[in-house]
């Protein structure tokens, strides 16, 4: 591994004095927050193999559970009130050029206050530190649920559609929207930083554990009688690909990371062999509220909106601008999630690079 000069990057205030190049494309240092999460861990695995990356800083409260070679683990809790100072110090010391902020929850939790601290305040800490270190690039994970499932959504939500999730009563979605708001402000205040937001659709795959995978792992799934919205999924490998793309090349802006194809919810359930449990919506909402309040069920009542109204994002921009091409379409994602050998799935297994 080439030796990197120990150049410590100066803070913003005296950046005029420093002569160190801000960004060395062959010797990059990437910081990943939420390194234990699926996206964080998979991204680190991929960057570890990439020669262009000199060092990776994994920031999380738990150490990633795979062997680390050029990755340094730093235990940083984003809910800690001084997390921003810790991050800034670390990143400046190591000369971080790219920050990947993936420390978000992948499923709603009853600990709403803590979740808010982590997602909203944690994002504030990360953005403060990124502004302080004047990083070259910031990639943040978001989800397409920020658009919110409403009856007035068009069939395909583009990136500039308003974030309807703001009006949702779900804290989970609201915190995500708030994080995006902060990021937008950051992007305005720091025009020199490349800011990329990747909004992923519900992600499934053989290894990922999140709300969707838990939901679709049960034998029975609730449906709202008479409502059968179209849904989309994205494969975990494609999500990782998108993050690698966004880290290796600069694509400022927001991108929907979605798989090809849509299917009605009931068809997805049928393909997965789930038994639908039809409930009238006026019963389902209070029931779900009660189950959530009693901590019996893991989805808050507002999530039923996703089973009722459309929330499908348009992935055209990512394809056009980033050159992102999902290797798994909806049915292949389902097949791979179920562990079935789908005809097309074979071709996309790791050794094969191209596809579709």
């Amino acid at each position, binding site marked *: 591994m080439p030796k990197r000069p120990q150049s410590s990057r100066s803070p913003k205030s005296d950046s005029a004095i420093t002569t160190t190049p801000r960004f060395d494309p062959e010797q990059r240092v990437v910081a990943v927050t939420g390194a234990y999460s699926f996206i964080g861990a998979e991204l680190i695995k991929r960057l570890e193999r990439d020669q262009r990356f000199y060092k990776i800083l994994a920031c999380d409260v738990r150490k990633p559970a795979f062997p680390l070679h050029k990755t340094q683990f730093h235990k940083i809790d984003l809910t800690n009130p001084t997390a921003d100072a810790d991050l800034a110090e670390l990143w400046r010391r190591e000369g971080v050029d790219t920050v990947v902020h993936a420390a978000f929850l992948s*499923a709603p939790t009853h600990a709403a206050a803590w979740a808010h601290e982590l997602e909203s305040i944690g994002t504030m800490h990360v953005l403060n530190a990124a502004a302080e270190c004047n990083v070259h690039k910031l990639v943040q994970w978001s989800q397409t649920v920020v658009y919110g499932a409403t009856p007035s959504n*068009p069939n395909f939500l583009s990136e500039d559609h308003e974030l309807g999730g703001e009006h949702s009563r779900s804290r989970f979605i609201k915190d995500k929207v708030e994080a995006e708001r902060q990021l937008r402000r950051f992007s305005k205040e720091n025009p020199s930083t490349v800011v990329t937001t990747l909004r992923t659709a519900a992600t499934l795959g053989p290894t990922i554990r999140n709300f969707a995978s838990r939901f679709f792992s049960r034998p029975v799934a609730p449906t709202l009688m*008479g409502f059968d919205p179209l849904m989309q999924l994205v494969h975990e490998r494609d999500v990782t690909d998108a993050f690698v793309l966004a880290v290796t090349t600069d694509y400022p802006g927001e991108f929907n990371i979605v798989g090809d194809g*849509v299917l009605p919810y009931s068809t997805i359930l*049928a393909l997965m*062999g789930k038994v639908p449990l039809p409930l009238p919506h006026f019963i389902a909402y209070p029931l779900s509220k009660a189950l959530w309040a009693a901590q019996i069920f893991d989805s808050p009542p507002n999530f039923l909106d996703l089973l009722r109204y459309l929330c499908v994002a348009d992935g055209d921009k990512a394809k056009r601008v980033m050159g992102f091409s999902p290797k798994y379409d909806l049915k292949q994602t389902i097949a791979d999630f179920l562990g079935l050998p789908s005809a097309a799935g074979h071709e996309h297994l790791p050794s094969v690079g191209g596809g579709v």
Partner: protein
Amino acid sequence: MATKILGDDPFGDAPAPKPEPKVEAKPEAKVEAQPEAKPEAKKEPKPRAKPAEPKVAAPPVAAPPVAAPPVAEPAPPPAKARPETPGSAYGPSIDARDASRPSPRIADDLRGIQDAVKHRLATRDATGEHAGERQSLPLEFLWRRWQKIAMRDRSDVVDEFGRDPHVAARVDPILSFLYKSYFRVEASGLGHIPDEGRALIVANHSGTLPYDGAMIMHAVRSEHAAHRDVRPLVEDFVFHFPYLGTLMNRIGGVRACPENAARLLEKDQLVAVFPEGIKGIGKLFRDRYQLQRFGRGGFIKLALKTDAPIIPTAVVGAEEIHPMLRKLTWLTRTIGVPYIPITPTFPALGPLGMLPLPSKWYIVFGEPLYFNAEYGKEGANDRILVNRLAEQVRIKIQDMLDVVLNKRQSVFFG
């Protein structure tokens, strides 16, 4: 019962589940940033985590028995299958087994499982990448049966706006009955619809429920030379209704909004719009065939932007299917509908009152209007021009309506 078959199935020689790469068994550790990790830690007791061992395959029965009852076919006594299946040569032995029972399908299922395991082994050996894969299907063949049942009346491919060819094919005879026998639709001017390429059918809207959209769709599909599919844009309120919105969507309806319409036209589809919108469909009987304001001219902007010809279309007869005398707007917000119609039959006869009256229909497609050639894309930004063109189209359709109405002798017999 089903589990016994699995007892001998190839899972027996599937590899033991490799240790999960991501799991560090620290159950006490507080998972801060990734709740994804939680289920993994808990995974051990879950049966599906261990696909390989036949004994553990028994508990997961929890899932499939639910699926089992719908399997109406005579389930073969699986106990027989057991003794004569040697683990190594199970493939041929299945085929060789007594032909008395309906085995081929089960044999297929088992072969599927065999393939699955081979595939799993191959991918694991080759790359080690899939080591963390889980087996979500403890009873795969039962699952396949259930999947077949669940998928029987739907297609596993819908177009991007949700039109399901199977559902559409099933609804087609109903539409055909309505079209031919019930409303006895007479369509004319179908030649004005291009055989290919985008076009915007602009029609008057009436009838309380969007039958007119369905009839225009059916007219073009069954009588036009190219049998094209029309995508009618349907008001929002239809999608607030349970069932109705879903059904409209499966047979081709699309929620009316500029984004959807533009996307469809850019894909060279035939789109039907009803610019009167809710004001048109909810017209009182005394206002019949009086075209309402054409929205804000959104359809003109659309046609100018996407360079689509406008085909003015008049639908006569739909006004009389549900002659609405009054409409109640009281409390309707709370149930998500714009109004409750009062027709001579509706609340009085209950659900029976929801049957449309069998009026005689005429659908007239007019000559296409090419505004884009004259005003170009920029015309879309000229609001006064847009309004003027919208009014022009409205008058054109009103004239077409009047011509047909003057010829018509009777509402029910034409």
